[in-house]
């Protein structure tokens, strides 16, 4: 357990370092292309440092915003709060804040930079479709992620790697499909457009590497470990096993999830239809294997 925590903190450090270099490089490139000279370099340093600090302190808020999660009060969701508080006691952790996503697809994730600043997010569908023992299993799994500091690595990975991946996605798409109706009125359009194309192509080249990084940071072993630790908290593995079966059987995709945040969730929220594209991003081990591991306990 303590080894796990140390390794997660180490990984987070390298992730931050990598991100620092990447942002610095991009800003420098931008400076070079726009003839800003030394100011470009200063700008690069400022942007890199600001974004790094920003992502450490507010990546959880960014993730919550991306996922359209809303904070909820105890009086509105006493059931959820009771379960979360109970498992926080079991794990000996401070109580995480609770957030809800207004979506009927059942799923959940945890985020934050340490146990003191942690959140647990569930969808409305999860509360409706699971019984108490199953919900406890899911929350215990998330609590294990919090205790192991998995949340720090996972959340940083979303913001840092996700920003780059999504940017390249977006640029490539606008490059591929936006070609016919490019704006012709703007004066600086040509220059900026060229830069975007260059940056976009660089990012596009880096994208597979980035995807690989997500998978490295969020190894599948981590999910098994959180399942085992979660089961240890509830002392009732069948609860989580039956919850996982229900979540796997539910074919509804979660709208607020995307490629960058998919690995956060307890089961893959994208529900990959005949999956080819998403298989590249397969950050979750097959549910059957997880259920089998739980049933062996």
């Amino acid at each position, binding site marked *: 357990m303590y080894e796990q925590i140390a390794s997660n903190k180490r990984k987070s450090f390298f992730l931050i370092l990598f991100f620092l270099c990447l942002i610095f490089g991009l800003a420098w490139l931008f400076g070079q292309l726009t003839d800003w000279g030394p100011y470009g370099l200063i700008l690069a340093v400022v942007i890199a440092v600001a974004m790094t600090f920003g992502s450490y302190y507010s990546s959880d808020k960014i993730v919550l915003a991306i996922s359209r999660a809303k904070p909820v009060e105890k009086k509105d969701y*006493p059931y959820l709060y009771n379960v979360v508080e*109970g*498992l926080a006691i079991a*794990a000996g952790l401070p109580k995480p804040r609770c957030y809800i996503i207004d979506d009927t697809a059942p799923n959940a994730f945890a985020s934050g930079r340490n146990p003191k600043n942690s959140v647990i997010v569930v969808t409305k569908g999860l509360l409706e479709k699971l019984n108490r023992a199953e919900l406890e299993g899911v929350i215990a799994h998330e609590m294990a992620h919090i205790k192991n500091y998995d949340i720090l690595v996972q959340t940083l990975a979303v913001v840092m790697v996700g920003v780059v991946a999504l940017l390249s996605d977006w640029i490539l798409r606008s490059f591929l499909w936006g070609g016919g109706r490019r704006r012709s009125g703007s004066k600086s359009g040509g220059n900026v457009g060229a830069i975007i194309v260059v940056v976009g192509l660089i990012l596009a080249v880096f994208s597979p590497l980035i995807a690989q990084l997500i998978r490295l940071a969020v190894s599948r072993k981590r999910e098994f470990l959180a399942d*085992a630790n979660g089961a240890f908290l509830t002392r009732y593995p069948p609860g989580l096993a039956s919850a996982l079966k229900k979540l796997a059987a539910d074919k509804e995709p979660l709208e607020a999830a995307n490629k960058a945040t998919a690995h956060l969730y307890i089961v893959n929220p994208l529900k990959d239809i005949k999956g080819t594209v998403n298989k590249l991003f397969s950050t979750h081990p097959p549910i059957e294997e997880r259920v089998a591991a739980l049933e062996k*306990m």
Partner: protein
Amino acid sequence: MGIALIVVIAIVAFMIIFVIGVYNGLITLRNRCDNAWAQVDVQLRRRYDLIPNLVETVKGYAKHEREVFQKVTEARAKAIDAGTVKEQGEAENMLSGALKSLFAVVENYPDLKANQNFLMLQEELAGTEGKIAYARQFYNDNVMKFNLKQQVFPSNIIANMFNFNEKEYFEIEEPEARRPVEVKF
């Protein structure tokens, strides 16, 4: 002569450092147990606070079930007065039994079962009972670590030297569906 003296001093220094280390470890574990027990206590108190409200709400619908109400009230008073951890466990078992018969009575009153206030109290009680179970589990885990340290060699010598006492486990009956299971890694 000189070397022998140095060796003796080194051994004594090592032993003192070792004793300090084990002693501090024991103190840490004992504080963790106390802290864990405080968590249990908070949740037990929460349950005692909920019970009068619950009894009043049920009374509004089922006036004639005096026996059950009395049983619950008595069991609650006994649990509040319980001294040692063992007594507390026994009193909690009785209280849980009394509450079970109260909820069995409720089954006969469909109006009551649909009452919003009652449903809220029922959820609160279920939630609190879950928290008691988890707080108890956390406490017992800590007690196990503390007791183990006092039993194994060589820390048992130091524990004896400073009169550490083993703590009692907080034992209450497990509901049928929640028997502990062995978790292997």
